[in-house]
């Protein structure tokens, strides 16, 4: 299982703070992204950053381990 989290402006568009996605052999961050973007197209219009296990993930070809915590995020506006 992959634990997907959403925050702030993305939650407003997904209507949920997160979901579980079945882990598949060879699954990359891009696979997960594409699957979720198809499900939440409005939310993914503003997604421009991803993190895996709390680390910035800039390489979408990155393979995902089972039980990863993955976040797709809108541009930050803290500070």
């Amino acid at each position, binding site marked *: 299982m992959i634990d997907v989290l959403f*925050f702030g402006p993305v939650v407003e568009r997904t209507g949920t703070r997160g979901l579980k996605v079945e882990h598949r052999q060879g699954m990359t961050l891009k696979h997960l992204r594409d699957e979720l973007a198809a499900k939440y197209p409005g939310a993914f219009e503003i997604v421009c950053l991803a993190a895996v296990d709390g680390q910035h993930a800039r390489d979408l070809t990155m393979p995902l381990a089972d039980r990863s915590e993955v976040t797709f995020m*809108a*541009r*930050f*506006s*803290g500070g």
Partner: protein
Amino acid sequence: MKDQVRIQEEDFSQDEEIAALKASCLRMGGIATFLGCARDFSEGREVSRISFEAYGSMALSEMKKLRLDAIEKFGLIDARIVHRIATVSAGDNIVFIAAGAEHRAAAFDACRYMIDELKMRVPIWKKEITPEGDAWVSPHP
């Protein structure tokens, strides 16, 4: 003494933070700080309150990394970063960054670096609450 890097709901005191920063060393000649506050007006709209949300665990670890990066990059003696995650009104404190160095140039450069990088690296989002409704502030990518 409070942690050097914190995310908290409650307000903070500059006097306390500076005292904690200075406690580490008597060789600190210059301390530059940045205090970010809520404004009553943003991009042409009146703003009543601002509400913050964070990906808490990642935000804290990114802020800790950022502090260490700045200390190393600018040769600081010490640095502190505090960000509130709360609903605040105009004039209220949001974020405080302090950089202490032997001399002022490094303190200024590091303080500016930390707030610039915080805005890019740390997963925090703000929602502006206006008389016309709420809106997440989501700068265009």
